């Protein structure tokens, strides 16, 4: 069973040389994340008017009552090393992301474990402490002896996050490289959770996260964020990165976000985009926001009116990225005019050779691109729709509105 030590207890612990003479007290400790992600690599000791740096392999033993005793006292004077993540300065009182708890938390203290590798005691960061217990420790640190504080905190339940599940946020890209901070852990979160977290951070930190995470994850998270904030995030990014993210979004959502931006910025982003998604988004941008055209997306599957169930299955195989939210297929005639809507589930009970026409919904509700938003939501309510096809002035299928679009419209009211 490894022994543990709180960072508050490490602070101002005496440091003794090999003959037991006191050199000074601990002022701070630092990780060097490029070398090891959790080991306390340096202990900074205040001796006289300068600070000295103790490397982890110069330490022989660490214990709460006796302090730190060294095996080697050739100490270098401390100078601000860019590769160090200093706990007292850079971590304590700052916000970090709790990846499994899916929230932003403030660091009150750290729990370190002491283990002996045969030659020396090594300190490793094991948990980040939040909550009342660690607040009490911070308040009493230096006022009461550590043993008394440990006894006093007993009744309060601990509240900590394992260090492996924490993500430090660093806005400065250069420093992020030096400190080996990445946001890949965040990519495993649900986009909606990531969006909540990002909303709690400062603008610079938001930008840092969106600048570095995978564009697909960024796109999913961005669509979940408050529209006003979406705009300011995209504006803060380099146009290339912003374009990468917008390309990954559904065209209707991309158009919504771009229409929130200033014309100049949205043009810059559009210029950086690939041509196929660009044309789709540009078309959608033409419609006023509060019309069917402004609400619809262009991600749908349509087939010729004489197509069979087999044709439909083949078409679905070619559109795998749409499958997660697809509920309806559409039939169009030779002039691309909408003729019927097929509820997707009916395909399962039909024989492979059956004509899709025979599976069509009995009544087909559709709206034109300039239909007002209010009317569209009314139709969804009245006919209990999941999708609503939108046609242009020639009756051609232009896009579809889905129930999730309606929910966001209603939520924003």
């Amino acid at each position: 069973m490894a022994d543990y030590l709180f960072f508050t207890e490490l602070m101002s612990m005496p440091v003794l040389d090999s003959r037991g003479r006191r050199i000074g007290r601990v002022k701070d400790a630092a990780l060097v994340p490029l070398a090891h992600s959790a080991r306390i690599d340096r202990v900074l000791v205040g001796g006289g008017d300068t600070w000295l740096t103790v490397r982890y392999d110069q330490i022989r033993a660490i214990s709460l009552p006796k302090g730190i005793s060294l095996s080697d006292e050739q100490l270098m004077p401390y100078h601000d090393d860019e590769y160090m993540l200093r706990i007292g300065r850079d971590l304590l009182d700052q916000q970090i992301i709790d990846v499994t708890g899916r929230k932003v938390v403030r660091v009150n203290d750290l729990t370190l474990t002491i283990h002996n590798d045969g030659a020396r005691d090594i300190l490793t960061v094991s948990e980040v402490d939040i909550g009342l217990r660690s607040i009490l420790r911070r308040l009493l640190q230096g006022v009461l002896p550590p043993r008394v504080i440990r006894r006093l905190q007993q009744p309060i339940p601990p509240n900590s996050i394992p260090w492996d599940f924490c993500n430090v946020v660093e806005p400065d890209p250069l420093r992020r490289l030096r400190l080996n901070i990445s946001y890949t852990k965040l990519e495993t979160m649900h986009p909606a959770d990531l969006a909540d977290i990002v909303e709690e951070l400062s603008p610079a930190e938001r930008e840092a996260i969106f600048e570095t995470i995978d564009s697909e994850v960024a796109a999913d998270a961005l669509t979940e964020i408050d529209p006003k904030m979406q705009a300011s995030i995209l504006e803060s990014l380099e146009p290339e990165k912003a374009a990468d993210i917008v390309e990954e979004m559904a065209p209707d959502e991309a158009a919504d976000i771009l229409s929130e931006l200033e014309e100049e910025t949205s043009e810059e982003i559009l210029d950086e985009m690939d041509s196929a998604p660009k044309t789709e988004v540009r078309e959608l941008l033409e419609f006023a926001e509060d019309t069917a055209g402004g609400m619809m997306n262009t991600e749908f599957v349509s087939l010729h009116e004489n197509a069979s169930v087999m044709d439909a299955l083949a078409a679905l195989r070619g559109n795998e990225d749409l499958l997660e939210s697809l509920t309806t297929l559409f039939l169009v005639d030779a002039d691309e005019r909408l003729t019927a809507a097929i509820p997707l589930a009916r395909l399962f009970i039909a024989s492979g050779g059956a004509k899709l026409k025979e599976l069509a919904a009995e009544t087909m509700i559709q709206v034109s691109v300039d239909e007002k938003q209010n009317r569209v939501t009314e139709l969804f309510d009245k006919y209990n729709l999941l999708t609503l096809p939108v046609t242009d002035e020639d009756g051609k299928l232009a896009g579809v509105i889905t129930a999730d679009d309606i929910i966001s419209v209603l939520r924003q009211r």
Partner: protein
Amino acid sequence: MRAFLSRFRYQILLFLGVLGPGVITAMVDNDSGGIYTYSAAGAKYGYLPLWTLLPITVVLIITQEMCSRMGAVTGKGLSDLIREEFGLRITFVTMALLVLVNLTNVVSEFAGIASSLELFHISRYITVPLSAFAVWFMVVKGTYRSVEKIFLFASLLYVTYIVSGILVKPDWKEAAIYSVKPVMMLDSGYIYMLIGMVGTTIAPWMQFYLQSAIVEKGISAKEYSASRLEVIVGCIGTDIIAFFIIVACAGAIYSVAPRDIQDAAQAAVALKPFGQYAFLLFSAGLFNASLFAASILPLSTAYSVCEGLGFESGVDRRFREAPIFYVLYTLLIVVGAGVIMIPNFPLVPMILLSQVLNGVLLPLILIFMVLLINKRELMGEWVNSHWLNLAAWITVVVMIGLTLAYSGISIRGLK
């Protein structure tokens, strides 16, 4: 011309987009305590104190502008910044003081609710619990957007003071002259009154509330010029209201017979000879202001404390997710309203005590603010300019001097 019009429209839209934090904060500044102070000044000294409103507006703008700028640039609340830059212990002491000061303020807001409605012969044992519940319910069940709309509407209701001020038919010529002509008298009552007017103007909670509201609204550094305008408009608006309160009491009380008044409800009663409407509007204004401040103070306190100490916070969270936030918020309302219902509670000493605590807390916070806003790693190009810094430090020193003097006098009052 069309280009100009569309540009103008764009500016207006931009302004409406950021409208909220600055106006609300400035208006709540005229809470029941503020209305009492201004009424008392007008009742005893007539138009003489009007000149202080101009420097008060300037001081208010300087402090509020710094907060809103910090909020827009860093995207963090004031207590967040204090915690990150000055550590847990200082934050804890600041927050403990803030809770105490704000609690006493909440008590005086509920006192304002009670006395304004007692003018209409409704017992406080009905009005106070009802108002407390309404306040609690609105915030717990609402979202930030809906609450902000209600608050903006409440800010509009301050117009009642302008109307009641006009109804009293004060001497406008005198009012105009004394608005720009400083009058000093070596009369201890007069000096106390002047200090009191400045003292009620800048309260610690305002700095926290304003900055958090700017952050919550998502105002960015780019929209900042519109936001600054909003803050300035709010500060000017709040002092226009103050002007009309003083003028109304000068016209109604001072011109008849100068005297001391004990609370703002007495000022409302004195307006009765000038018509039922003047009285009605003045007391409705008092009720609105007290209820408004009673809604914001507990909320703002709970936010600041939870942000600073790192607990989950926000009305958009459920109780289980942010227990400390909700407990603190509810406790402030329950205790604040409960105290008013205790018969013979020593209210006056408690309000004086609140002034003393205020005097300890405000200097701390003003100093933190100026230190924070000059940190280049936080503010980048948005740090204070040389001249603004000079103005800020002068403001801080003057405010600290006045607040300490004010709390010193309050301590004497406590004995």
